[in-house]
């Protein structure tokens, strides 16, 4: 296997005819391109808003990893639950969250997906089956196991049929050393739970290069094999490869009701968070990976096949920029949460100082649309 700084690794694939590489329709391919462009533009504007102090707290940018969220969500069904860690804007948008709710959440506005109570690290979208956005490293892995457990329980015990869902549980390579992940893998393997642990291996847990913190880092999937969990290594910089290979993994997990672990090789082009000067890696290494930009790769492949031309690409880009700009305007215009919101959503029930609960706008809007 190639090392992180191996140029071949960052530029693998792309020259075979599309028909050999994917069964996706032209519309689907264009939609993946649009989604990746949306995430990229959204994150660029997020960084600006953070500099402008419209966004507080911790903020983690997904630029560079777009093919992972887009390819993985495209590989499963909408009803399949997904859960992720704190670098979660990309997953939310790929899952179908309107960017205005995502931006308003970071602005701390009532129109945010969690009424401004969660922030950047905690994106939730019930209609789109996104179960967070979780801030504690690795904590989402037992939750993801539980989501898949629940789909299986509902399919088999409540509906009396066959298990027919999978759950996607994303984690960073830094999370593979958390105890919770080992317990989650043991339970998933033991109970035949169809959860797919997708390690977005961007090579660094904050500033710690993977080999400095993780044993067997050259073969991460060995950490699933120990639990009887099938492992897969997937190049995560090309959305066509990601979707195709993840679809095969997901189909198998769905059919067999078994877990899987994926070592998804990727790279974050920006720092760990907004305050990271990236002194732990070289500019040369970054340039190698930037040369394999997932958006450029898909664009070039589509141009080569004649599915899109330069003008159409520019139009798509312009459309996405307008969408993000209007999201920012919407988020700006959304009011701050009323002070009474401090005491809502603590308990479902209303008692003492607690004011009960209600669904946020992201849910009521989508119900009204139906």
């Amino acid at each position, binding site marked *: 296997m190639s090392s992180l700084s191996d140029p071949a690794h960052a530029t693998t694939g792309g020259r075979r005819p599309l028909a050999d590489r994917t069964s996706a329709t032209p519309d689907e391919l264009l939609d993946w391109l649009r989604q990746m462009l949306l995430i990229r533009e959204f994150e660029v504007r997020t960084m600006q808003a953070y500099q402008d102090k419209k966004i507080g707290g911790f903020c983690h940018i997904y630029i560079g990893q777009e093919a992972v969220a887009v390819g993985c969500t495209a590989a499963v069904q909408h009803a399949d639950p997904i859960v992720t860690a704190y670098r979660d804007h990309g997953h939310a948008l790929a899952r179908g969250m309107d960017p205005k709710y995502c931006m308003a959440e970071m602005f701390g506005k009532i129109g945010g997906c*969690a009424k401004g109570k969660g922030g950047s690290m905690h994106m*939730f979208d019930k209609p789109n089956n996104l179960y967070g956005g979780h801030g504690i490293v690795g*904590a989402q892995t*037992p*939750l993801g196991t539980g989501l898949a457990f629940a789909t299986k329980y509902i399919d088999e015990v409540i509906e009396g049929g066959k298990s027919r869902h999978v759950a996607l549980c994303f984690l960073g390579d830094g999370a593979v050393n958390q105890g919770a992940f080992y317990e989650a893998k043991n339970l998933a393997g033991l109970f035949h739970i169809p959860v797919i642990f997708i390690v977005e291996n961007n090579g660094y847990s904050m500033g710690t290069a993977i080999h400095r913190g993780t044993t067997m880092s050259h073969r991460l999937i060995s950490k699933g094999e120990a639990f009887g969990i099938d492992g897969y290594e997937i190049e995560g910089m090309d959305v066509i490869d990601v979707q195709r290979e993840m679809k095969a993994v997901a189909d198998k997990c769905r059919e067999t009701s078994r877990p899987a672990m994926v070592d998804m090789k990727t790279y974050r082009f920006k720092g760990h968070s907004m305050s990271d000067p990236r002194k732990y890696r070289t500019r040369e290494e970054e340039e190698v990976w930037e040369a394999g930009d997932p958006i450029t790769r898909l664009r070039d492949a589509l141009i080569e096949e004649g599915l899109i031309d330069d003008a159409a690409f520019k139009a798509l880009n312009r459309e996405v920029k307008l969408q993000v700009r209007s999201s920012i305007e919407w988020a700006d215009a959304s009011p701050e949460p009323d002070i009474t919101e401090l005491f809502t959503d603590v308990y479902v029930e209303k008692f003492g100082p607690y004011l009960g609960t209600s669904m946020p706008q992201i849910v009521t809007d989508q119900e009204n649309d139906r």
Partner: protein
Amino acid sequence: MSERTLEFRDALREAMSQEMRANKRVFLLGEEVAEYDGAYKVSRGMLEEFGPQRIIDTPISESGFAGMAIGAAMMGLRPIVEFMSWSFSLVAADPILNNAPKMLYMSGGQFGCPIVFRGNDGAGGQLGSTHSWCVEGMYSNVPGLKMAIPAFADDAKGLLTTAIRDDDPVFFLESERLLALKGHVPEGEHLVPFGQALVRRSGDDVTIVSFGRPVHFCLEAAEALEAEGISCEVIDGRTIRPLDLDTIVRSVKKTNACVVVDQSWSFGSPGSEIAAQIHQACFDDLDNHVMRVHSADVPTPYAWNLEQEYLPNARRIAEAVRSALYVA
């Protein structure tokens, strides 16, 4: 009509079984709950009735199975998680404190967590310090969870039924020392609402407030004090979150003296919180400050005599009552 008598543990099982019959979304998981019939036989026979998909033996892996159950609850299932001992929940602190009670808030109302965590709490019998945790001291600090702590068999059934039907996460604290306690337990549906304390013994001179196992120490002390001519009113709080302050205040306004008995350590405890709330609500009614009796502020000892002295026992409660009433 003869009253049916059940052990506390059987009352717990009856609540779980009745709810599982009524609602397929309810299931039980934990260490040894299925084939072993429960480490303390609370779930005896449930595997036979409900099968292995709903009575689930887990490995010794509290963080994993507690987190897994929380994920399942987010999807609308209603798991009952048995901790063999609440002492073992400490290794699951992140899921049970960081996820379950905060999920509704952090998701802006999108994902609740209808889950029950239950198991033995407090000193068992010479189990030593690591196995004798009174988690109400730490966990009651966290908003978003409810906490029930029954002292009698009928409440064990009634409070657990309420807990299973509750849409919020419930921390349900049992006591190994009470599991064999017998009492009248209604046969059919039996619900005890949260936030309603019960006056276990009426009296005029002093209000004694407690919850869980120490309620029995309080009743024992009240019996002894009656011989000295001191009339004690003993209140069983039954739930810590929500707390029924009204019943306590009503009693203190009558007796003008109060002792709070709490088996957790004193520093930052339910006992200190309740005492503070009573001082605030009854400042002009009190003839003395509120006295508190807690477990001794040391790790739980093994030796029998030390453990007995460590507990908020009847002798220490009686001393606090006399002190509250200025009886030398």
